[in-house]
């Protein structure tokens, strides 16, 4: 049991440390919060710079724009780049989720054409699974793809699509046969987002931001060559994509603890450090052991991955614990600030209003990528092996499943 790099890993770490020190922006030099289009442009510039240096998608094969290295090299990169103020995770969904879908299901020619510009973020991708009537029950999706010669005609609506407003391409899951079981009637495609019949509408979130979008399809056309996998094989393809997502986001889920510790070390009540307050200390202890536990759990998972395994469903716990904690910490930090806690002007609020921003954004994290409740189901069923709930859609064709007053 140790935390040492292998000799080869140590050389690699030294190499990227050197490169980052010359090319990345130190955290202290970073400006305040940027607006969305500015942040997007910054991210594109950073990704291109990384790709030109040969460090993009380290675990992808070289011919597809990667570096031909392992998952562990990618982890080492992530560990080092977090010391800088660069938007290194900005396109994680496109690259982490859509990349493997293309890698696994597209033709050789498509892979060589599509993947290198994806890796360098010269083209940006989004993932379109969720729908207004298909959230936790994502296999209940209703966007249809109807075959028309060597084309497919797409109609319907996706929602909660991250970054769709900036995307050139998307991976989309559609219903191709509503007369059979819902899991067998889906097919995966990729689609050109800049074409007639595709309309993106940003969603104004409760925090005022617009990270997520609605995407409407009105007789949009996809050539059959853009199909990913077999007709009817969409659910299996989607599960493969989601399994890759676990690795892509391993250890990057913020839990809010480092910011909380920093705050507690600076605040005072009537001249005494707030860290001497028994109630604050109780929270510090509990949140620290959860924070440390998530980190150590991630290291156990990465060790398993280094030995050739895939991250298991237990990866759900980092998301479940971290997302709730992030929200609770933000709330508590605001309480510690007293009347000033409600002020969210970054010029006045602690840490450029980190806690005020988080208290409004964190409810979304508890919903995105699997709600707290879905995460508990995943752990209960896939890790502990407990039985599923009896289901009202079992054995029914998709178009016979009860749907209440939701239009079909």
């Amino acid at each position, binding site marked *: *049991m140790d935390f040492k790099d292998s000799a080869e890993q140590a050389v690699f770490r030294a190499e990227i440390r050197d490169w980052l020190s010359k090319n990345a922006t130190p955290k202290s030099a970073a400006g305040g919060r940027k607006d969305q289009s500015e942040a997007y442009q910054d991210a594109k510039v950073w990704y291109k710079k990384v790709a030109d240096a040969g460090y993009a998608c380290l675990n992808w094969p070289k011919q597809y724009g990667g570096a031909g290295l392992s998952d562990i090299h990618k982890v080492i990169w992530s560990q080092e780049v977090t010391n800088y103020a660069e938007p290194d995770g900005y396109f994680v969904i496109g690259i982490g989720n859509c990349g493997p879908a293309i890698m696994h299901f597209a033709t050789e020619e498509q892979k060589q054409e599509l993947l290198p510009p994806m890796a360098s973020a010269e083209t940006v991708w989004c993932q379109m699974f969720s729908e207004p009537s298909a959230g936790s029950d994502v296999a209940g999706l209703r966007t249809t793809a109807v075959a028309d010669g060597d084309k497919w005609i797409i109609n319907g609506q996706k929602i909660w699509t991250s970054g769709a407003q900036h995307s050139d391409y998307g991976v989309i899951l559609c219903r191709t046969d509503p007369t059979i079981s819902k899991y067998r009637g889906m097919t995966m495609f990729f689609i050109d987002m800049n074409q007639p019949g595709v309309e993106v509408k940003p969603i104004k979130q409760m925090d005022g931001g617009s990270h997520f979008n609605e995407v409407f399809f009105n007789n949009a056309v996809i050539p059959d060559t853009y199909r990913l996998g077999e007709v009817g094989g969409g659910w299996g393809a989607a599960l493969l994509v989601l399994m890759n997502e676990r690795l892509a986001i391993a250890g990057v889920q913020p839990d809010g603890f480092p910011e909380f510790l920093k705050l507690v070390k600076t605040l005072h009540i009537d001249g005494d450090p707030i860290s001497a307050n028994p109630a604050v200390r109780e929270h510090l202890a509990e949140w620290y052991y959860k924070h440390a536990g998530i980190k150590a759990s991630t290291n156990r998972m990465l060790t398993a991955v280094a030995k050739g395994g895939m991250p298991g469903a*237990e990866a759900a716990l980092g998301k479940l*614990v971290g997302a709730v904690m992030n929200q609770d910490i933000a709330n508590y930090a605001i309480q510690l600030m007293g009347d000033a806690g409600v002020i969210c002007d970054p010029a006045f609020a602690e840490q450029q209003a980190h806690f005020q921003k988080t208290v409004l954004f964190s409810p979304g994290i508890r919903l995105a990528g699997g709600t707290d409740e879905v995460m508990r189901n995943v752990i209960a069923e896939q890790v502990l092996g407990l039985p599923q709930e009896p289901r009202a859609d079992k054995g029914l064709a998709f178009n016979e499943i009860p749907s209440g007053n939701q239009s079909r």
Partner: protein
Amino acid sequence: MNFDFSEDQKNIQEQARSMLAKECSSARVRDVIDGEHYFDAELWQQVVALGWPAITITEEHGGLGLSYLELCVIATELGRSLAPIPFIASVYLGTELIKTAASPAQQQEWLPALASGDIISTVAISEGNTNHVDCRVVNNQLSGRKSAVLHGMIANKAIVSAKNENGDLGLYFADLSDSSVGRASQDSLDPSLPRAELIFNKTPVIQLAGETPAASALHTLFDRAAVLLAFEQVGGCEAAIDMAKAYTTDRYAFGRQVASFQAIKHKLADMFVAKELAKSNAYYGAWALAADAPELPLAAATARVSAVDAYYLCSKENIQAHGGMGFTWEFDCHLYYRRAQNLSTLLGGNPYWKSLLVDRLLAA
């Protein structure tokens, strides 16, 4: 990075698990709880024969010279099986304190008998619910009372904290078979690992004469033992989760398996999450312990608090998942609940460890 136990260590764990599954059924634990004996002597002899008390003792002192990591995997299995033997008292506490605080010559004299299981040791620190030490040593004779001493009724030797004529804290080796020692069994929440009061009346003692001052030796002992106990607690959590899973999967209500209700599934998921956090924190503690890393104090406190919270949650919700049967003497749920209480108070309660954790975190 290789943040896992080795294949050899996992094999040791597997062997321990199958041995204890066979030799340490809950009926054996209940024999100690309900019966006349303070521990399962037959199981203790088997454990001694396997060399478990000798794991971290060097070969020159008659031990196996293995690392703390081997002891951690054994601890998990002893915790899982609720082993009613003086392993915590004699190995994690007595042996470790002698390794930390005794002189080389004393270690040479005492450790071989601990490695071979010829003697059972314990430590006697608490005198009630405060840190106050009233025990006094005058002319190498100890007088005073110690309370809640783990396996105090059957240990042959105890290391006792006491003050000398000048009021300096010291650690003293006492032979509990001496006629000057009185022992009184104390009813406790968990009779499977019983506690006792020890009364010393001018008992001849030998001061532990290592270079480490008594107070810092005790801190080191507590940190090391906290990591080992965390593995015992994680083993107990896993047993409680397995029980809850088995019972709710077998039992039907409203025409379906109880485990198919989300209320139950989410309860078990929360138990799993708490256990998994505790396990990962214990792994980090094991690394720090085995590497003798400067991170040990914070890692140990983290492992401790995480494991205490997890075992309380898993053992209480296991009762809940069993419904009324969980409240019976007949079902084993209360054995884990009792053990969780016992281990969480040994070495100081959760508020004490949380405070240590925060002090160390802020100093880091």
